[in-house]
């Protein structure tokens, strides 16, 4: 008698007691499904959060100004130091810096024909396009003449193009009205901002930052960020750039610093892992309970089939073969439960993915772990009943009423 034979006997025995088998498996099914769904949601959440928080641009790091009041004095009104093109030059020379991006911001009410919308405007320099790898869909990017000549030109993103222009219309060269002033559209670009953060209503636009400064009265440079030539060293490059800028500007009551994404990311991962582990172990308890249920039913089954065991022994089954038969039956029961649990988890993750923004997926690794773990439960909780069956004396077993 080989394992396959035992497996077939086990399957028919499970099939012969359908209701009992399903009820027994239920604990395993729910346990496995719960563990897999929780792990899948955990992984999905981690992926989504890291994507949202850090993937905007892994190469770029923002420098921001931090006010430090002189010792012993209360914090008073403070102003960020003026940033100039000289500062850009300084940062560009910092080792490891590939490019420097300087931007400012504005808000404008845009009107064209009957459409109107409040738009966020980012003021950029010519370096912005290559540094951020902006894809132009139509028209052209800004050139030095636009920046230096204070040309009142704008670029709109694909969302704004859809809102303000018909598909058949050519927006290039069109004049739009922004805060009651005319501007000329010279191009359409694909926004580099991750989809979930884009303004899906009106879209956004780019303008030479010199023009924003002129028309809106804002500073020409409100924000500096650097791009590292080696993305792996973004943190160090950012810190070095911030320190260089602080030193160059001779700041006394403040300094430039960067956000250390790596630390945030590590912290976040740790938190999610801990949470997943916590909820996962609670779900694991249900697996334990399921296993005990399996053991219970197997013990009942051994008692019920005492005479069958006696007969099998009389016709030549050894202890080992009886043990194997019942063990395989327990393993088949729990593995089947595990498989059904995975199926349930697959449905569960699909539902989770549909109703929430989290993309939860059942990975092949999890399926493998799920099945082997439920088989392991079968071994652990099947060994006692199987051993009991194998130790029955054939005479007593045959005489059992």
């Amino acid at each position, binding site marked *: *008698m080989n394992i396959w*034979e035992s497996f077939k006997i086990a399957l*028919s025995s499970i099939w*012969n007691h359908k209701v009992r088998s399903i009820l027994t498996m239920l604990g395993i099914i729910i346990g496995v499904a719960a563990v897999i769904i929780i792990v899948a949601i955990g992984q999905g959440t981690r992926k989504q959060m890291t994507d949202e928080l850090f993937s905007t641009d892994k190469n770029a790091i923002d420098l921001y100004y931090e006010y430090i009041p002189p010792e012993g004095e209360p914090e008073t009104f403070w102003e960020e130091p003026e940033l100039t093109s000289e500062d850009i030059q300084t940062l560009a020379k910092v080792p490891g810096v590939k490019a420097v991006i300087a931007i400012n911001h504005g808000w404008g009410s845009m009107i064209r024909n009957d459409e109107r919308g409040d738009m966020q405007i980012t003021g950029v320099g010519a370096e912005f396009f290559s540094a951020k790898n902006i894809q132009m869909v139509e028209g052209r990017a800004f050139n030095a003449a636009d920046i230096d000549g204070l040309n009142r030109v704008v670029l709109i993103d694909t969302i704004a193009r859809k809102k303000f222009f018909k598909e058949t219309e050519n927006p290039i060269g069109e004049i739009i009205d922004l805060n009651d002033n005319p501007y000329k559209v010279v191009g359409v670009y694909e926004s580099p901002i991750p989809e979930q953060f884009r303004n899906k209503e009106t879209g956004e636009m780019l303008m030479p930052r010199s023009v924003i400064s002129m028309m809106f009265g804002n500073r020409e440079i409100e924000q500096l960020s650097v791009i590292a030539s080696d993305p792996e060293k973004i943190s160090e490059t950012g810190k070095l750039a911030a320190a260089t800028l602080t030193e160059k500007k001779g700041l006394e009551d403040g300094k430039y610093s960067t956000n250390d994404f790596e630390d945030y990311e590590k912290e976040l991962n740790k938190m999610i892992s801990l949470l997943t582990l916590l909820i996962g172990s609670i779900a694991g308890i249900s697996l334990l309970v399921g296993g005990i249920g399996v053991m219970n039913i197997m013990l009942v089954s051994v008692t019920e089939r005492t*005479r*069958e065991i*006696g*007969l*099998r*022994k*009389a*016709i*030549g*089954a*050894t*202890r*080992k*073969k009886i043990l194997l038969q019942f063990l395989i039956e327990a393993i088949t029961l729990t593995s089947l439960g595990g498989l059904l649990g995975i199926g349930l988890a697959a449905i569960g993750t699909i539902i989770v993915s549909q109703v929430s923004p989290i993309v939860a997926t059942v990975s092949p690794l999890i399926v493998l772990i799920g099945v082997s773990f439920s088989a392991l439960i079968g071994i652990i909780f099947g060994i006692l009943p199987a051993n009991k069956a194998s130790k029955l*004396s*054939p*005479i007593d077993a*045959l005489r059992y009423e």
Partner: protein
Amino acid sequence: MKLSEITKVYGKGALEVPVLHGIDLTIEDGEFLAIMGPSGSGKSTLMNIIGFLDYPTSGTFELNGEKVDSAKESILARLRNEHIGFVFQQFFMLPRDNAIKNVASPLIYAGVSKRERTERAKKMLVKVGLEDRMKHLPNQLSGGQKQRVAIARALVNNPTILLADEPTGALDSKTSEQIMKLFMQLNEEGKTVIIVTHEEEIAAYAKRIITIKDGLITNDRRVKP
């Protein structure tokens, strides 16, 4: 098959219950033997020892000149599988398996392939006259038919000895007669048949009758050549 000075004691210490007090018995190939005795005489215990289902407490037991009284459990299981065909009073069928599968079951433990198992099981069912009941489940068979299936199962492994414990105990007299005639026929074909019974009429089919009382053989007579 040679048993000498076989004793069996159940329990331990103060609860010791001696059942067999020293049985000497030699069974030759091709014999038709009936073991008789009232209940509690120890005949079932003797049958269990002969059938390798139980160990004797003391004494020696030789099968074809080989000592088997203290063999390991796994060896006894193999001996049961190869040398003994059991027929029980209560039939002991696998209730969810049909006649063929029930008959074939000892062959599973002998490591015979499925195709050969089915073939041999069918042959045995034909031999016991159940060619038209092969696919029936035990609960679709009468008592006599069940016992025929059990006999086919006992024969399928081509054992040396057919060991029947009250094989007609659950059957009416007409069916009993048919079953006993089947045993006679099998014995004429050369099979050793041992029947444990308390009924005179059943024992009368045998060629040699042994009577056991209080754990001892009190009578051993050859009734037919």
